[in-house]
């Protein structure tokens, strides 16, 4: 299977039932992590053709010929969010952060001047067990100001 990963051409053998998550980890993208196996937690969020998807339940073969982006592929935008999260203490265990950050960057591209409710709805699929979301909300506020 051929696809583009963070601007790099990849040619890799994949099993018919292999989820994209596993393939990306085989490509050494360690930011892509699994949290639930049931498409509930949002931790494995990456972009396919610039749209956020859940890589745990996205068959890798479907990404044939497509452009896949992980946090490693958007270093400048990711750094901006990471810095805000770090300064707020909102990283905590960090396990859900890459998926959350990919959703946040996608949201920033999708929405202009969203309300708090719109933000919460956009990001509702990104669960976090550590923070209680308040510190993330403070980060999001700063991201737009």
């Amino acid at each position, binding site marked *: 299977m051929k696809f583009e990963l963070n601007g790099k051409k990849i040619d890799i053998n994949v099993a018919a039932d292999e989820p994209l998550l596993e393939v990306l980890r085989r490509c*050494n*993208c*360690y*930011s*892509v*992590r699994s*949290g*639930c*196996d*049931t498409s*509930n*937690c949002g*931790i494995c969020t990456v972009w396919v053709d610039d749209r956020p998807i859940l890589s745990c339940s996205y068959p890798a073969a479907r990404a044939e010929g497509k452009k896949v982006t*992980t*946090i*490693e592929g958007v270093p400048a935008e*990711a750094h901006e969010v*990471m810095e805000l*999260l*770090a*300064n*707020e*203490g*909102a*990283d*905590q*265990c*960090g*396990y*859900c*952060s*890459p998926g959350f*950050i990919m959703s946040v960057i996608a949201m920033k591209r999708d929405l202009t001047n969203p309300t708090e409710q719109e933000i*919460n*709805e956009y*990001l*509702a*699929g*990104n*669960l*976090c*067990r*550590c*923070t*209680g*979301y*308040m*510190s*993330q*909300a403070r980060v999001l506020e700063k991201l737009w100001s």
Partner: protein
Amino acid sequence: MDKNFKVVNQHIAKTDAFSIMGGAPVYTGDLVPGDALTVKILRSPYAFAKVLEVKKDIAMKVPGVVCILSHEDVPLHRMSAAGSSYPGNNPYDRRILDSIVRYVGDPVAIIAAEDEKAAEKAMKLVKVSYEVMEPVLDFEKAEEMAAGGAVVHPEDNYVFQMDIGGDLQKNILSQDAIGEGDFEAEYNKCEFKLDETYYTCANQQAMMETFRSFSYYDQSGRLTIVSSTQITFHVRRLIAQALGLSQAKVRVIKPRIGGGFGAKQSMVTEPYAAVVTWKTGRPAYVCFDRHESFACGNTRHGFRVRVRLGADRTGLVKALWVDSLQNVGAYGEHAVNVAGLSGHKTIPLYAKTSAWKFTEKSVYTNTTPGGAFRGFGATQGCFAVESTVNKLAMLAGLDPTEIRLKNLPEVGQPMPAYYGEILQSCALPDCIRTGRKMIDWDNKYKSEPFSTQVGPHRYRGLGMAVTMQGSGLTNLDCCTVTIRLDDGGFYTMGIGASDMGTGCDTILAQMAAEVLQCDVDRIVVNGVDTTSSPYDKGSYASSTTYVTGNATVRAAKQLLDKMMAEAAVQLGVEQSEVEFDGDRFFVKAGEEMLQSMKNAGLNTYEKTQAKEGAESEERSLSLEELGVESVNGQRDFLTATVSFSGQSSPPPFVAGFAEVEVDTETGEIQLIDLVGVVDCGTVINKNLAQVQAEGGFMQGAGMALYEQVVIADDGRLSTDSFMQYKIPSRLDVPKIRIAFEESYEPTGPFGAKSIGEVVINTPSPAIISAIKNAVGAEIHSLPATAEKVYNALKNK
């Protein structure tokens, strides 16, 4: 009390922030060797059964299968998987694989193969025959069922490490009773007598990174386990015990952890990886999926708590009896201590009693084993006791906040139910007052239900609760810190405490930096590898800030003292003449010089200039120079190792408040506001403490409203994924507002106490009493689902 801090009590980012968020390979699953075997576990479909035969021959023929182990292949002796100091009170009640399976999901066979597909194919081909027995699923009937022959632990090699009042023939793991005064006499004298029973169900810690570990033999032939664990050193001892090895032959490494909340205070996956490496010599990796993590890890223990409380007309609690019955589940990890905390950390808040009593019993059942979960029994006890006190407020027509203020312990007072410890710091009254302001209690709180209508059938209400926890285990747990000066003029600090995302690597570095007068960047923190880290019991019992923190401060002070002594030698002066500013060692300007400056009539600026001139280059030494001198073979290397064990476990406190809106047509509960005011002594890291508190309150809200472990009639866990077990999303917790009222704990590092656990306790009693305050619906079992509220309204 000096609170003029430079590095502690500040907002400081976590030192690992960019690696964990940016996708660096720093978690267990990122570090697995390419040739590691995949380990899968064949699990019992029955809640209680004898394993008669495990037929492996056909499965072994699957290409890629390397080994299949059943109970005949593993050591016979029993162990505990609990991470707590040795010797302890956890029973040796489990084997790696046993001939009796005690809950749905209990391991029957371990399958190791070259890849996951082969392992899974083989799993389907292992044929197991069982003799199915009637399971004990209702913990309230555990004793009664034992009389009928359903004994969960009938084995003859079960070991109690100490007398905990167990009676296995009755399914009783442990029981205890303590108290003071004549309870019945005092209770009967009281104006208000309450006798309330509450239930908490099991809860999932639901850390985002599931249980996982891998193992291999290292360069010197030691069985090495890399694990997502809170208890690195305990795992070394437990694995050695499980396999009958010398601890010298076992090494455990903890990388970054994707959350623990207590779940990883037990050994869960480690023995399965280790036993495969031990048998095959090959690296082996075991990773639980979410279903396994929920069904076969460990949960918060479910409780029934009966509270009998007597109070006088003014709300003064005169008699208090907490009686806890705990569902241990199939194995006894942590159960004895968890049961204890349901009384030890609730009764002391009502400090003016004439009589109190705490009785507790823990019973085995055929359900997923309980374990540690943030709050550790105090949470369950807090729900019951605080709900009862809120009911007292209603009956007596008193304000719930005033009742608390009237009954709280005072600084200097001993707390008999809390191991007789003397309270040395407490800002809980301030926490209550501040919280009351934050939620606008005085205007919004109406004692009668249905007082605040906000829609055709929607009403709002307020509730509150108070709580305490501890800061480590007194005179038991040992935490050690090693800190050294390196030749580049920076420090390396070795810790055995396990940063699980809470940020202990950072806050301990802050404490060392405060002592050594430098930035956090100058302290490299290294943990945890049992080969190179100093001993620490691990991260649990709210202990890293207080216990490891105390060791850190002492180690840094000792190193500073050694550096000053060495600098004095090199500067050719007495140590008392040396000053250190974090970068350089100076010779203090002597009295003689100061006098001559005074006589010369210099102004302050000129004096400073003259003083700096006097402390000239040849009379000073940089930290880097001292570091270089310490490794050039002429002088000693500068390092300090100090261990600390708490002589007390000072309680942090929280006052929690909730406002809810309830729909009387549907029973739906909407959380409007959650306020928490925390006294954790000096806040070491303002960001991290706040986020700990917010996260704890969210988990507490989840426990109050959504999170429910459901066991089906056959013992199977019905809620084994995030589809059924709903943790709060950002749409469910609209507002959590946290404030701090800092006391100063004299025994704490820079006046600090703990924060990790105490923050989870108050939401459930506060929310439940807010529901009652809104619509009069009384909930006695968690979670308070819309269904329960609807039924409570209907049955009123």
